[in-house]
């Protein structure tokens, strides 16, 4: 086969493969991701059985423990609307009152949201330098 033609065929094959892979990547990211929600958005509309990435701040003084389970409220980053979350398992060190958290939740009975195990993360410490929280340690 003419080498130039062979090269262009190779190029087309490689580009098609790359495009297909990129397409798969894009598709799965849109279908696999959990939509991010603030507490007030969840109060406004929740689909029972669907999981959301709840982002917000831990309400001061709301953290209580019952055995393995930790109960706390998450409020909007700016605002006071808050929802109760129940979470089982160890929490990362930075977790405390006023701290910004992200946790995967689904709506349980009533208005309580259950956090998925090991899904709770707090923002990386490099981001909360010089932050002041009038809070007690957990």
């Amino acid at each position, binding site marked *: 086969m003419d080498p130039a033609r062979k090269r262009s065929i190779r190029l087309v094959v490689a580009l098609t493969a790359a495009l297909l*892979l990129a397409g798969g990547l894009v598709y799965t990211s849109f279908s696999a991701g959990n939509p*991010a929600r603030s507490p007030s958005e969840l109060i406004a509309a929740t689909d029972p059985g669907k999981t959301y990435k709840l982002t917000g701040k831990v309400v001061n003084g709301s953290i209580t423990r019952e055995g*393995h389970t930790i109960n706390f409220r998450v409020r909007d980053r700016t605002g006071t609307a808050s929802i109760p979350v129940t979470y089982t398992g*160890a929490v990362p*060190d930075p977790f405390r009152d006023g701290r910004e958290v992200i946790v995967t939740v689904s709506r349980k009975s009533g208005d309580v949201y259950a956090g998925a195990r090991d899904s709770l993360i707090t923002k990386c410490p490099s981001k909360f*330098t010089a932050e*002041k929280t*009038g809070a007690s340690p957990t």
Partner: protein
Amino acid sequence: MEIVGRAALFLALAVCLYGIAASIYGGVSKRREWVDSGRRSVYALAIVLTVAFAIVEVAFLTSSFKYNVVAGHSSTTTPTFYKASAMWSSQEGSMLLWVWLLSLWSSLVTFLTRKRMRDVLPWATAALLGYGLFFTGLLVFFVHPFATTAIVPADGAGLNPLLRYPAMMIHPPMLYSGYTLFSIPFAFAVGALIAGRVDAEWIRSTRRFALAAWLMLGCGILLGARWSYSELGWGGYWAWDAVENASLMPWLTGTAFLHSVMIQERRGMLKIWNVSLVLLTGILCILGTFLVRSGILDSIHAFGGSTLGVPFVVMLGAMGIASVGLVVWRRGMLKSEHRLDSLLSRESIFLGNNIVLVGLCFVVFWGTFFPLISEAFTGDETSVGPPWFSRYTVPLALVLVLLSGIGPLVAWRRNTASNLRRTFAIPVACGVITLIALLPVNGVPQKPLALAMFALGAFVAGTVGQELFRGVRARRVTTGEAYPLAAVSLVRRNRRRYGGYLVHLGITVLFVGVAASSAFQHAHDVRMNVGETAHVGGYDVKYLRATGTIAKDPSGTGALMDLGAVLDVSKNGKHIATLRPSRGYYPSDDTSQGTLMSLINGEPTSEVAMKSGPLRDFWTAVSPDFAKLQPIIEQGNKVVPQGNIDAAVLVLAAISQNYQNHPPAATFRIISSPLVMWIWLGGLITISGALIALWPAPDAARRRATAGLKARVAQDLGRA
């Protein structure tokens, strides 16, 4: 001193402006004295910035709280080592560190290349000073390290206790050294494109810097992982967090660049690809700094509030447009001198490795920016988690390890079938034997991806071992040296090659550690009272007793109160280890809840206790039930007079004693994880390999002096 500091920053800005102008004028008019003057402004920049850096550093060491940056990030109770390094936990300090490191590395490269690359150097100098201009501009106009306050506070907020970990203090200078060192090949690529000198000379001159950048960035990433594993109290080393991804992306494209430049040096191919890769790496380094410092990924709204967002976007845009423009402008010069002869040649394997690495970078980029992308397209901020990343990165990593084993075995240009059979036999046998040996092991066949990684790891180890052995044997035949001496002199004479092989081995060991520890980990969160036992992955963990100490923090991080546990780990009745995890409570400057509380309501952190071994890590962390102590502390608060620290410490001592004698149930995180040590060991092997490759060869100086001349003669002959 703050006046001197501010003046130094203004002066740095002026030096950058002058140096850029002098270099560009020197480059256009070809007048040496202007080029030299531009180069000297790089040295001047380094001196001026060293003064500024030293002033901030001294302010931190002397706890000079009139500086806002010191008051916000240090305190009298912060231990001295952490005072010295608290500087780069602040926005201002980290920007200053960035540009200071840039000025040092730039001075080094402009000094080393001052007698060579005369046509490229002025443009490269201008590009390096362009970086300097941007960052000093940020320090003069946007963030102010020398801002002071009239009312000097008695004490500062203190360094965030989570950052009080030795590796974490070296981590930012390492990362930033990586970023700033990558700006050197970037600048020389820009210089080569502008000057129209796109042969391999700019690559040769900056290869060591690219390799050093890759090494430093890699060390930085590894130290960050180590910190996460042993300080954050969740027991993982990598979470696909945006901040981690930000440093991984330029490392991936940098790795690709280090491989593909060999093809340009050897065969004059892939010139467009190489300049594009290095320009991309330079841009990703700025993007990395931007991601961490602007907070854009917290939410698109945080971006508006950040002072650094807009300048960084302008800088990134300018770099991107200039890079694309330069490559398009010079595309005629960047034509390949050769074509790929065969799909089974070292060139093709390198090309494959490049595609995989850039693919990995794209996956990481897409996942990191997905919240912004999805918000832009659907109006809904959606993020993808670690499972999504693993789905793509694990198969790509497997291919990468496979290629790193094949690459050294195939020759440049073409290979014959008999040749391939001979070189592949032993490495393939290593892989197959490992595969067969691991198949009957309980639980391994259920994790096919991990099993594949183990087999491929053995294949790479076989390759590296065989290549080293063949080299040593050949050297023994020609020189008659004994085996150990032959090995040493072989590596000494081919540092780049055998250093590279060692890096392959190190990365493979690291990947095997990652595969084993993520596939076969047992993690449990349990709540126990003293005397109770938990069962984790075949081990028994008994909570023997509680501990409570005041001002005796074992790791020297400045924790005032330390509550912990003593755990006995055993297997089938046999004692394995006694572990003492604890949680440190730190003073803060918040006195609104009383003096007693102010001594312990800083950020609490876990002091992880683990038993590390070559085959398994047993990792534990404890969270004491602080809520149970709350009523006692509140009572104590009433007793202690406001501001009486001594009395407060006495009461706290009583409280911690009480905790030790009558502990409430505590929550433990217990993890049994195989081969974690291999990750750190693989990292060390990689670092040693890179250092070997970086070290100048004994006769390199002589060769370097004649190489340029030879190249010129060859070029002229070629033209004639």
